[in-house]
């Protein structure tokens, strides 16, 4: 019987009163759905109180990262109160460091600043997931390209041809859309930046970076032309 791969639990505060709570919730969803779908799970924070032992065992059974909107650290405190110490505790206001002012609480008023902030936080969470997995010696085991998951649905991948090999990159279209949103033109001067962004989500072997860079630029130019 195959040994179950370790997954990192991510618990968001989702604080309703502040925009950072909305950002914590959406960034966590992005990690679950797109950035680290095979390596992460989540649980509603209020279930620690309203639920039973099964929910309270959550952090005992998973290495856990909490994502709080503000320095009250409700997710961290609530999780540690009921389930024990967490592996990492992130705070949105610290991550954004005042660089994304006037974000909205509700999605009807969400704009470019909000989208940027969500990306920044999601990428930081994903990096923390990698670090936690590395610390427990499981990073390599969880580095599969297989993007299917029972508890969260990864976005479909996009295909490129690098060194004559077809490679599927999870959520490539969304990564490209993010690059477009942030004003990255589809010109050769930006090829390294495109590669760098994709490498956040997809492991790229060092010796193949040149071929990937070329293939990604071509795919990005095609994406921009179609958009």
């Amino acid at each position, binding site marked *: 019987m195959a040994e179950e791969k370790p997954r990192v639990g991510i618990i968001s505060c989702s604080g*309703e009163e502040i925009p950072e709570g909305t950002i914590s919730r959406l960034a966590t969803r992005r990690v679950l759905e797109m950035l680290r779908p095979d390596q992460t799970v989540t649980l509603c*924070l*209020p279930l620690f109180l*309203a639920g039973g032992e099964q929910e309270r065992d959550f952090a005992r059974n998973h290495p856990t990262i909490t994502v709080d909107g503000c320095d009250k650290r409700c997710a961290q*405190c609530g999780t540690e109160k009921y389930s024990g110490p967490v592996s990492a505790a992130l705070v949105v206001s610290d991550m954004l460091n005042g660089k994304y002012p006037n974000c909205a609480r509700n*999605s009807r008023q969400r704009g470019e600043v909000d989208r940027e902030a969500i990306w920044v936080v999601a990428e930081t969470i994903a990096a923390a997931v990698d670090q936690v997995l590395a610390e427990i010696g499981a990073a390599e085991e969880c580095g599969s390209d297989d993007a299917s998951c029972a508890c969260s649905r990864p976005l479909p991948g996009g295909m490129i041809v690098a060194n004559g090999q077809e490679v599927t990159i999870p959520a490539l279209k969304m990564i490209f859309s993010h690059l477009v949103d942030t004003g990255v033109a589809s010109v050769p001067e930006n090829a390294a930046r495109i590669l760098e962004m994709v490498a956040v989500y997809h492991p790229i072997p060092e010796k193949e970076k040149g071929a990937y860079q070329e293939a990604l630029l071509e795919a990005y130019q095609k994406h921009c032309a179609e958009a």
Partner: protein
Amino acid sequence: MKQTEQVLVIPCSGIGKVHGLISREATYLVTDELAPDQAGTLCLALLVKGDEEALERVRTQPCITIDGCPKACAQKNVALAGGQTDCAFQVLQVLKQHRGAQPGSASGLNEVGWAVARELAELVRDKVTELSGCEVKS
């Protein structure tokens, strides 16, 4: 109306399903659009943490909870905090009127999801009117 006199609308904001997002967006429709003076919200996580100020607010202000699923986390957490829920809504109450509807995902609502959220928000707004004794936007 002072913040301490407002009706508290507290959603579960459940992160796993679209129902949690509907509860959250319905809350914002009430607090930001339909009854901004009469209704406010409170971080449910603060109650989970046991924050003194949050506990005091749910014990002294009228509370309406909106839950995404029958686990009723918002309603239960208000009760565990010593507050009294004056009215408890569940997203499924409204969703079952839209049999077969696909309201979106836990990350984003589609047109159907927004219609459900607004319908729910209007029910909550009516309850806010009743509890606050003030006329609110119709």
